[in-house]
C-alpha cells in the first residue's frame, strides 16, 4: 500500500498560504476565499480517502493496524543520530487528519461569511492556510524533532491569528501572552527532546515506542533525583504539551486567545491546535506507559484531572460566552489528558487511550460547532457578553438548534457524540482511579450546567430589546453549523475502539450501563439546575452567587492566576532579576562595546586629517616620500 500521496495533504494548504501571502495585494477577496476553501477541500478529500484506505482496504497483520512511514534524512548529526522528515500513518494520525481537515474546511467555509468585508480577508485565509499546513505536518510527523518544528509553526500561526486584529491593544497583548506562555512551555519540550535523543540515540517514534525496544527497556539504567532520566524527559515533554493544551498552570493564555476572530478560536483554540498536547502524549503513549511503570503518566492524569475541575469551576462564573467556551475547552482537554493518564496498554485495558482519542474526535466536532455558533451569535448582536443577549431563538433558529445539539453533546446526553466518548473516559477512570472518576463525574455535571447556562442565556432568558433586530447568519455560516451539528449527532456511533487503540489491535467496547446511567443522570441534573436558574429571568443565580461569597469572587477572577503570574513576572522577575541584569548589560557590556566604538571614532577623527582633501598636503607627502626614497637610494649607492 502506498501512502506517499499523503504528503500532499499538508502541502496544498502550504501552497495556498504562499499563493495568498505573496499575491496578497493582487488577489480579490472573493477569489481568495474560494482558493482557501478549494485547497482545504482537496486536502479533506485526500484525508478521507486515506482514512478509508487505511482502515478498510488495508489488511491488518495479526489483527494489528500497521504503521506506514515514508521519510528522508534531513540532518545528519552523527552516524547514529539523524533527523528525518517524512510522514507517519497510523490510527491516531489518520484520525487527526480527519479531525483537522474537517474542522479546517468548515472553518474556511464559515470564515467566508464571518470575515466578509474585513480588510485583511486575504491575509486571514493565508494564515488559515499556514495553520492547516503546520497542523497537518504536526500530525504526520515521524519523529520528535519534526513534531517540534511543526509544533512551533502552529504556535506562530496561532500567534498571528490571535493578533489578527492587531490594532486592538488587547489582541496584541493576548497574542504576545499566548506566544510567550507556549514558548516557555516549549522550552521544556525541547529539553525533553534533547534528553530523549541523548539517552536513547533516536528521535523516531517507531523506535521510541516499541515496547520491546531499547529506548523503553533501558529506562532504569540512568537516574536523576530519584527518577529515571527518561521520566524527567517525558515530564518535560508533557510540559510542552501542557502549554499547548492549556493545562494548569500554563492555561492562562487560552482565555485571552479569544481575542482572535471566532473562526480562529473554533479551529485553533478549540478543535485542533490545543489538542496537540493530548496528541503528543498519545503519540508517545507507550513510552509514558512503560517507562518507570507510568510515573509520568500519573502526572499527566492528575494534571489533567485538576485542570478539568479547575476550568469547569471558572467557566460557571464567566460572562463572556467565548471565555466560557475557552474554559470549557480547557476542561475537556483536561478530561482527555486524564483519560490518557488512567489508560492501560493492552486490549481492553487501553480503554482510556481509546476514550481520550474518541473524546478528542467528538469534542473537536461539537466544540467547533459551539464556537461557530457563538460566532454566529456574536456576528448578529456584536457583543461577547451574556448581558447583551437573550431570547435569540426567535431570530436565529438554525443557530439555536445547532447550538442546542452541541450543548447536549458536550453535556453527555445520549445519543449525541459527547455521551459515548465521555462515558468511555469515565469507565476508564472508574477502573483505574476512583478519585479521578469522581472528579470527572463532578466536572461532567458542571459542564452540563455551564453549557446550558450560556445556552439559556443566549437563546432564552430575558427578552432583550435590540437596536437592530438580529437575523440569521448567511448560508456560508449556517452550512458549517448544520454539517457539524449532523456530525455531532452521529460521530458518537462510530465504533471507535475498533480503530484507534493504544496497541493498535482494536477491541469491542461495551457500554457500561450503570456508569453510563450515573453520568447521564449527573448531566441531566446540571441541565435541570441551569433550567431553573436561567430559563426565565430571575434572581436565583444572583442569590446563589452571593451565598458563595468570597469563593464566587475568586472564581469570577479565575482564582487570580493572571494576577499571580503578573506579580511573579513583573515584580519578581522583571524588577529583581531582569532589571539588574539589564543595568549590568547596559552599563558594562554595552559600555565596553560603545567605548570601543567611541575610541574608534576618536582615533579615526584624528587620523582622518591625513585624507584632508587638501592637495598641498598630498604634495607635501609626495615631497617627503621623494626625499626619503632618494636618501635611501643615495645611501645605498654610495655605499
Amino acid at each position, binding site marked *: 500500500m502506498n501512502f506517499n500521496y499523503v504528503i500532499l495533504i499538508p502541502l496544498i494548504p502550504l501552497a495556498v498560504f504562499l499563493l495568498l501571502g505573496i499575491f496578497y495585494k493582487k488577489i480579490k477577496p472573493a477569489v481568495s476565499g474560494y482558493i482557501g476553501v478549494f485547497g482545504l477541500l482537496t486536502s479533506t478529500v485526500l484525508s478521507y480517502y486515506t482514512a478509508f484506505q487505511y482502515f478498510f482496504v488495508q489488511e491488518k497483520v495479526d489483527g494489528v493496524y500497521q504503521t506506514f512511514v515514508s521519510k528522508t534524512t534531513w540532518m545528519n548529526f552523527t552516524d547514529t543520530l539523524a533527523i528525518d522528515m517524512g510522514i507517519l500513518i497510523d490510527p491516531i494520525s489518520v484520525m487527526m487528519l480527519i479531525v483537522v481537515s474537517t474542522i479546517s474546511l468548515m472553518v474556511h467555509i464559515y470564515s467566508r461569511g464571518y470575515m466578509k468585508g474585513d480588510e485583511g480577508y486575504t491575509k486571514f485565509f493565508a494564515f488559515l492556510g499556514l495553520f492547516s499546513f503546520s497542523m497537518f505536518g504536526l500530525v504526520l510527523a515521524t519523529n520528535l524533532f519534526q513534531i517540534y518544528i511543526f509544533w512551533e509553526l502552529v504556535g506562530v500561526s496561532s500567534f498571528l491569528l490571535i493578533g489578527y486584529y492587531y490594532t486592538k491593544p488587547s489582541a496584541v497583548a493576548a497574542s504576545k501572552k499566548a506566544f510567550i506562555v507556549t514558548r516557555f512551555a516549549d522550552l521544556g519540550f525541547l529539553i525533553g527532546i534533547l534528553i530523549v535523543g541523548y539517552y536513547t540515540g533516536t528521535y523516531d517514534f517507531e523506535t521510541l515506542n516499541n515496547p520491546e525496544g531499547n529506548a523503553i527497556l533501558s529506562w532504569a539504567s540512568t537516574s536523576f533525583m530519584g527518577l529515571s532520566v527518561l521520566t524527567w524527559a517525558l515530564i518535560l515533554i508533557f510540559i510542552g504539551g501542557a502549554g499547548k493544551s492549556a493545562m494548569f498552570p500554563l492555561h492562562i493564555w487560552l482565555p485571552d486567545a479569544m481575542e482572535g476572530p471566532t473562526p480562529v478560536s473554533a479551529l485553533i483554540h478549540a478543535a485542533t491546535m490545543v489538542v496537540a498536547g493530548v496528541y503528543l502524549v498519545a503519540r508517545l503513549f507507550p513510552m509514558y506507559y512503560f517507562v518507570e511503570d507510568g510515573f509520568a503518566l500519573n502526572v499527566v492524569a492528575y494534571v489533567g484531572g485538576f485542570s478539568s475541575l479547575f476550568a469547569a469551576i471558572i467557566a460557571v462564573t464567566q460572562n463572556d460566552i467565548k471565555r466560557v467556551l475557552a474554559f470549557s475547552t480547557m476542561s475537556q482537554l483536561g478530561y482527555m489528558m486524564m483519560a490518557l493518564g488512567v489508560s492501560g496498554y493492552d486490549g481492553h485495558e487501553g480503554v482510556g487511550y481509546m476514550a481520550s482519542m474518541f473524546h478528542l474526535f467528538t469534542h473537536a466536532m461539537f466544540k467547533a460547532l459551539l464556537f461557530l455558533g457563538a460566532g454566529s451569535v456574536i456576528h448578529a448582536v456584536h457583543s461577547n457578553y451574556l448581558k447583551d443577549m437573550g431570547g435569540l431563538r426567535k431570530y436565529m433558529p438554525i443557530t439555536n438548534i445547532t447550538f442546542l445539539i452541541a450543548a447536549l453533546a458536550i453535556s453527555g446526553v445520549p445519543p449525541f457524540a459527547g455521551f459515548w466518548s465521555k462515558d468511555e473516559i469515565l469507565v476508564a477512570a472508574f477502573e483505574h482511579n476512583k478519585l479521578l472518576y469522581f472528579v470527572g463525574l463532578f466536572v461532567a455535571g458542571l459542564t452540563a450546567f455551564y453549557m446550558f447556562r450560556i445556552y439559556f442565556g443566549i437563546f432564552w432568558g430575558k427578552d432583550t430589546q435590540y437596536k437592530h433586530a438580529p437575523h440569521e447568519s448567511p448560508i456560508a455560516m449556517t452550512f458549517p453549523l448544520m454539517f457539524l451539528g449532523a456530525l455531532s449527532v452521529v460521530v458518537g456511533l462510530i465504533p471507535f475502539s475498533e480503530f484507534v487503540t493504544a496497541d493498535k489491535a482494536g477491541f469491542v467496547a461495551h457500554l457500561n450501563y450503570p456508569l453510563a446511567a450515573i453520568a447521564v443522570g449527573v448531566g441531566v441534573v446540571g441541565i435541570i439546575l441551569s433550567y431553573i436558574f436561567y430559563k426565565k429571568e430571575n434572581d436565583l443565580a444572583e442569590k446563589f452567587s452571593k451565598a458563595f461569597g468570597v469563593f464566587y469572587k475568586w472564581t469570577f477572577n479565575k482564582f487570580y492566576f493572571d494576577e499571580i503570574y503578573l506579580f511573579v513576572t513583573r515584580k519578581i522577575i522583571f524588577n529583581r532579576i531582569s532589571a539588574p541584569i539589564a543595568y549590568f548589560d547596559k552599563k558594562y557590556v554595552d559600555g565596553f562595546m560603545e567605548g570601543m566604538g567611541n575610541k574608534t571614532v576618536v582615533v579615526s577623527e584624528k587620523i582622518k586629517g591625513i585624507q584632508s582633501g587638501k592637495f598641498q598636503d598630498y604634495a*607635501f607627502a609626495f615631497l*617627503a616620500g621623494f*626625499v626619503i626614497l*632618494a*636618501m635611501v637610494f*643615495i645611501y645605498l649607492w654610495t655605499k
Partner: protein
Amino acid sequence: MEKIIFYILAIIIIVFAIASVTSRKMLRSVIYLLFVLCGIAGIYFLIDYNFLAAIQLTVYAGGIIVLIIFSVLLVHHIEMELEDIKTSKKILVGLASLLGLGVFLTTIYAYNFPVIENSNSIDMDTIGLGLLSYEAGGFILPFEVISVLLLAAMIGAIVIAKGTKIATSDKPKGKSLEKN
C-alpha cells in the same frame, strides 16, 4: 666681470624667489616673481641665448605676470593680505625642502659633467628653421601639437571663465518676504 654679473643675478633670483613665496601681500608677491623672471632672462643673456631671453621677457614677464596681476586684482583688493599658516608646518616643509635640496646637490656634485668649452650662440634663423623643419632634428610636429594645444587652452579658458554664477542664494526671496 661675467662672473660677478652671474652672482648678482643668482642672488636676485634667489632672494626675490624667497620673497615671492613668503610675502604676505599678494601684489608684492607677484612683483617679486617678476624680478625673478627678469633675473632668469638675464642668465639667458649671459649664455648668449638672446632669443630665449626675449621670449622669457615677453611671454613670462609680459604675458603671464600681467595675467596673474589681473586675476589678483579681480579676486582681491590690492592691499589684501594672505592668511598665515602655522609656523610648525612652515618649518616642517622648509626642512623637507632643504633635505630635498641636499639630495639634489649631492647628486649633482657627485656627477662629473663632460663640459665642452664653446661660445656657440643661436640666432633666430636657426630657431625658425628648426621649428618648421620636417627633416631629421626638425620640430614641425611638436610645433603643430603646441599650436593646437594653445588653441584648445585658449578656447577652454574662455569657456571656463565665461561660466555664469551658479549660486542663486543672493536673489531676493520676493514672495515669501511679501507675505510676511
